[in-house]
């Protein structure tokens, strides 16, 4: 948001002045991520994950485009072409491990970003559009990641595609034809692999487009901050550059250190061994599990083991799994508390941490075999998940008595006296 005290872009070099008159792109950058964008001064490290998510998207696009130069989307050679990348392409192992672990890194960062939003009420007015676009990005990421995992055409690729596209067949009447239309056949085969490759190449650029909208919408009202109190005066903000470029900059280093530790020293730690076995439609793996970032939702899918009223168990699972994410779209209207930050919402804060634990339990159960006691545990954990978003959040937001808010961001940083001193000066 352009606050009245934001710095104005004043190019000094004649070339930049000439450029500014013809195409004010440097001005756009200056006002978006430069000295012209004023940001609350009190953002903590949880606010770094948006920048890191952008970095992950770039890593994925760059490694992915190069991988696509060497990969062949045909069921006869897909697996071997992946091994060709690993063995014969110069630095191919680095590209491929970087891309595979990059997907995991992207989800780690995005989950942190989403839960930051839950905690600090980032979804609340006037930033609903930022949140809605964020959920769209997350859904696109899930689709992209799923299709990317199919491409090496290993056992988990094939059987993952079988299970996930099988979800569509749960839809009454049109389910089976829809699934066949999506796959281009009765089971995942060459047609499916080819279209998954095409879409896996396309979707990241769609994500990039929605990311631009996400950032645009963010800049209309500016970032939230840990107090949830809106910016009131110049002393509440600092220019994005150099303050947040410096802060984001060093956490990029920290992120790269952790990410690189996986790429170079334990590249297969997050993968499943079965995907190093070529796809075999005649042999079902003992346990079909998706990648770890889908585990919470996979646990919800599998928690619905009995038919309910007229709805078959499988359809219940599918409905529940999609609802578990789609409910995020309604969050800005379900949570009516005028206080944004959980820091000042004692009751909501407790439920937030229960949710964090709950999602961790769901993730664990989603990765475990579909046996007892994991099914019963995931049923209870799914129950809490739905209660949290559909029932607890709306009710808590109307009955809770929030703690007193600080007068301003500056007061929260400098304390009462500091604010008084600033007030006296002004």
């Amino acid at each position, binding site marked *: 948001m352009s606050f009245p005290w934001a710095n104005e872009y004043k190019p000094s070099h004649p070339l930049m002045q000439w450029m500014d008159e013809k195409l004010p792109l440097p001005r756009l950058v200056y006002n978006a991520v430069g000295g012209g964008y004023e940001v609350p001064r009190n953002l903590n490290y949880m606010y770094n994950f948006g920048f890191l998510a952008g970095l992950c998207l770039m890593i994925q696009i760059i490694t992915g485009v190069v991988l696509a130069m060497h990969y062949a989307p045909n069921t006869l050679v897909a697996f071997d072409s992946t091994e060709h990348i690993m063995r014969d392409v110069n630095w191919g192992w680095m590209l491929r491990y970087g891309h595979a672990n990059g997907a995991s890194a992207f989800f780690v960062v995005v989950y942190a970003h989403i839960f930051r939003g839950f905690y600090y009420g980032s979804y609340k007015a006037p930033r609903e559009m930022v949140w809605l676009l964020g959920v769209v990005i997350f859904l696109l990421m899930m689709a992209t990641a799923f299709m990317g995992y199919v491409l090496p055409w290993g056992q988990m690729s094939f059987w993952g595609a079988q299970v996930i596209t099988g979800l569509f067949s749960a839809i009454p009447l049109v389910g089976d034809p829809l699934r066949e239309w999506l796959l281009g056949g009765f089971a995942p085969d060459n047609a499916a692999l080819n279209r998954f490759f095409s879409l896996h190449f396309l979707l990241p650029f769609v994500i990039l487009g929605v990311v631009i909208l996400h950032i645009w919408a963010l800049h209309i009202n500016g970032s939230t901050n840990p107090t949830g109190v809106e910016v009131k005066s110049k002393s509440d903000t600092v220019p994005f550059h150099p303050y947040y470029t410096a802060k984001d900059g060093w956490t990029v280093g920290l992120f790269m250190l952790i990410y690189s530790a996986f790429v170079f020293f334990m590249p297969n730690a997050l993968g499943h061994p079965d995907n190093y076995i070529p796809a075999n439609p005649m042999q079902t793996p003992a346990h079909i599990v998706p990648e770890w970032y889908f585990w919470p939702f996979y646990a919800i899918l599998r928690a619905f083991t009995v038919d309910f009223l007229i709805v078959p168990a499988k359809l219940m699972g599918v409905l*529940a799994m999609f609802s578990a994410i789609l409910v995020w779209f309604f969050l800005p209207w379900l949570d009516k508390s005028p206080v944004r930050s959980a820091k000042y919402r004692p009751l909501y804060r407790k439920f937030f941490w229960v949710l964090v634990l709950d999602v961790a339990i769901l993730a664990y159960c989603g990765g475990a075999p579909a046996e007892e006691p994991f099914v019963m545990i995931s049923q209870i954990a799914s129950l809490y998940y739905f209660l949290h978003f559909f029932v607890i959040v709306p009710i808590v937001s109307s009955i809770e008595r929030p703690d007193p808010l600080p007068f301003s961001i500056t007061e929260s940083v400098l304390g009462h006296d500091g604010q008084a001193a600033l007030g006296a000066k002004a």
Partner: protein
Amino acid sequence: MIRIFSILVGAFFSLALLLAFGTGAYSFVTEPPAKTVEATFYEHPEKLSLASDGIFGKYDKQQLQRGFQVYKEVCAACHSLKHVAFRDLSALGYSEAEVKAIAASYTINAQDPLTGEFKDRPGMPSDKFPHVTYAGKGVPPDLSLITKARHGGAAYIHSLLTGYSEQPAELIKAFPDAKTPDGLYYNRFFPNLNLSMPAPITSEGQVTYSDGTKATVDQMSKDVSAFLVWTAEPELEKRRQTGLWWMGFLLFTTVLAYMAYRNVWADKKGH
């Protein structure tokens, strides 16, 4: 309005879950899942330490050569190694002439560039290990990626190779129906306990090592496991070496960036 609707939707899913949980819990109590023979007698792979372990680990070339010999003389009767080219063997310490000689000892069925016919010819370093025709039932897996394609990796291969035995008497007593079927072989490290591969390494001295290492069953199994780590991850040493340099560089730049951050924020209280 939206909140009333939301609570109804929440109740819908919650009731379905409670019903599912109740049904599951009831059958869990009335018919507790029986302990399976696999859950009782399957064992996780025993720990195996190899020279290539750890972030500073390097391949023991002598051991890889021995492992290659075991593969060639024992495993290759049934198992292919299709992702590995003969030229790759120079990483085991073979000279160019030795690689050529190894390649030439294989017969490759390839298209003749002059006539277009498929003909047998001696292998060349650029060829990959040829297809292995297996006459028995089933398809023995290609071994190029086997240590990445199994939980436990090399330790699993080593344990499997040394884990064949008669079925324990307690097993037959506890699970009379679980007798190993004809044509399968009992192995406590195999996830469902019975596999169709008979013990491939059975006696001391089955392979004659030229470097004087005593060819015990355990030694041969260890060597071939080490070799199969290499076939699955030929890039391993380069990857770790690159990683160490890169992490060092990153650490340095991150410290610099952190100092820059402290410097930039020095005039702002509260950070």
